[in-house]
């Protein structure tokens, strides 16, 4: 099966006063039709910049896609003209963000904002677009959509605003929905509702989801395949069950040992266990990283790790890892 979206050797850089920041440094992955791909990593690992690069939303004053390609429906989004990109955004590829209030226009009703997107991309009248907006509000299960369609964002709760964002993103039946930390700002009971809704809509519409998050719990419960990023690079990729059962990269293992567990009672002798710490800090991205980006914090690192970047090794079953020392 051919991939719907193919990202190859993507490098995105920003010019800052401290020098060139290599925010994304040679990342490749595929998104298949109708699948949920999780991209996970800590702050500054390049996961959001990867998403913004796919939609070509990198601010041109400071940032640029330095190299690589993003193939989607016969086009290379890395080099496509801005006019063509405008036709794709919100239509073939959509995005939702962490804080819906900052992406919604406070002076327009939610119905107008959804209909605007529909009229822009599809050949329909305003009346039809408004009807579509109402259908979408029903689809994301906003009760009383006939009244809500004429309300302003501030009249809605945080969870409802995120539902409106999802309604808007899906209003033109996109092939890919990129969700950047869509539930991070929400309370846990609301987060559960929104995650359930996203998965249900994916089944219904067949839209592929790229879910970007720092939360391993969210990834475990929603993604089918996972890409783990560190310092602008992909360090591991695997089907979700394989990743959590048998993480191979020392960074992935470190992350999993560092999180307090909700589901395991580790306190057998009445003492609180220590969490495993990952020593040290993420390397600066303003200097080129020689060797493996994780080498300075890794317990297994050898001289080879510090001098030569590890190749991506196939561990079988769609599980790949970029590490010299990992034993598949």
């Amino acid at each position, binding site marked *: 099966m051919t991939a719907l979206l193919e990202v190859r050797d993507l490098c995105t850089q920003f010019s800052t006063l401290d020098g060139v920041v290599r925010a994304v440094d040679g990342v490749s992955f595929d998104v298949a039709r109708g699948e949920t791909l999780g991209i996970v990593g800590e702050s500054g690992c390049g996961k959001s910049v990867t998403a913004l690069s796919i939609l070509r939303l990198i601010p041109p004053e400071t940032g640029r896609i330095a190299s690589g390609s993003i193939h989607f429906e016969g086009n290379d989004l890395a080099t496509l003209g801005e006019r063509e990109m405008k036709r794709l955004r919100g239509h073939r590829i959509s995005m939702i963000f962490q804080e819906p209030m900052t992406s919604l226009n406070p002076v327009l009703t939610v119905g107008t904002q959804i209909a605007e997107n529909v009229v822009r991309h599809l050949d329909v009248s305003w009346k039809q677009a408004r009807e579509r907006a109402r259908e979408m509000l029903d689809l994301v299960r906003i009760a009383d959509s006939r009244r809500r369609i004429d309300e302003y964002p501030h009249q809605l709760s945080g*969870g409802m605003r995120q539902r409106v964002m999802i309604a808007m993103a899906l209003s033109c039946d996109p092939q890919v929905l990129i969700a950047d930390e869509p539930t991070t700002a929400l309370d846990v*009971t609301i987060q*559960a509702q929104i995650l*359930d809704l996203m998965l249900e809509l994916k089944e219904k519409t067949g839209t592929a989801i790229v879910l970007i998050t720092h939360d391993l719990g969210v990834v475990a419960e929603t993604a089918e395949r996972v890409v783990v990023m560190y310092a602008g690079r992909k360090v591991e990729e695997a089907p979700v*069950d394989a990743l959590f059962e048998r993480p191979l990269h020392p960074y992935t293992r470190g992350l999993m040992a560092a*999180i307090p*567990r909700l589901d395991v009672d580790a306190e057998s002798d009445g003492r609180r266990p220590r969490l495993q710490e990952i020593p040290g800090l993420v390397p600066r991205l303003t200097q080129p990283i020689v060797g493996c980006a994780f080498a300075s914090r890794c317990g297994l690192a050898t001289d080879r790790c510090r001098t030569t970047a590890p190749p991506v090794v196939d561990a079988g079953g769609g599980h790949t890892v970029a590490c010299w020392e990992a034993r598949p």
Partner: protein
Amino acid sequence: MSVLEVSDLVKHFPIYGGLLQRQVGAVRAVDCVSFTIARGETLGLVGESGCGKSTIGKTVLKLMEPTSGKIVLGGTDITALKPAAMWPHRKRIQTIFQDPYSSMNPRLSAGTIVGEPLENFGIAKGRERDERVARLFERVGLRPDAMRKYAHEFSGGQRQRLGIAKALSVSPDVIVADEPVSALDVSVQAQVLNLLIDLQEELGLAYLFISHDLAVMRHISHRIAVMYLGRIVELTDKRTLFSTPLHPYTEALLSAATAPDPKRRRKRRATVQGDVPSPANPPPGCHFHTRCPYAKAECKVTSPPLREVAPGHHVACLLR
């Protein structure tokens, strides 16, 4: 023996409206809350936004005056103390914030920031202060030569260490920690949680630990109070809370939480629908009845008291 005893604590924020800006209502942020914390113990306060957990923290610290109720700190009733009378007691209760950076003067060196309470309380100054600060830096895992650096030169995790060092500087009995690891990446979060546990075991500190994260709560707390719209709905030791939760809201929180285990995904369901009602206009009876899957007619009229249903296990629900 408990170092902090809070009984029937109430904090209302008035709402003004109309032409004459008269009081037209009140946000009942904290609605009759009682708990105690013993030396060396962590009591976790967990709940979603607007449940009043942070307001409890601020009121206990006397950064806000309670509307009514009683706060006893180490045997002294501090509820009605005016700022001057409160001053000597402030040493005994300190706080750690979610974002320590916003409470640090960018023009002062880290050593000055951490040493400030020592001077303010007349504990140490000059060389003695510097020596104490250097020891505090070492204790929280910072190099003493970092005392000369400024707050912006530290990473997020290191700033939280500075915040902890500052809170420790006056040797408090109680630390109110309000979401102290929520802004940190997981690898750094682990470092800070380990440090907090080590310090507690070494110094016998009592923590009032406020968080929305159930996994963090399970890790650090001894007992946990679950809050909903200003009230404690369940309070028990953590093992009981996670193995046999009794309040429907606790049940909902636990089933809504995500865990890093793909096998759990088929089990998790959003068991409660809808949003949290406004604390300015909470539903009558049990606050949770509008979202509770088990609610009966009586729940809409009768407010359930917090009852002890098993030793140490308190629940506010008419049905359990």
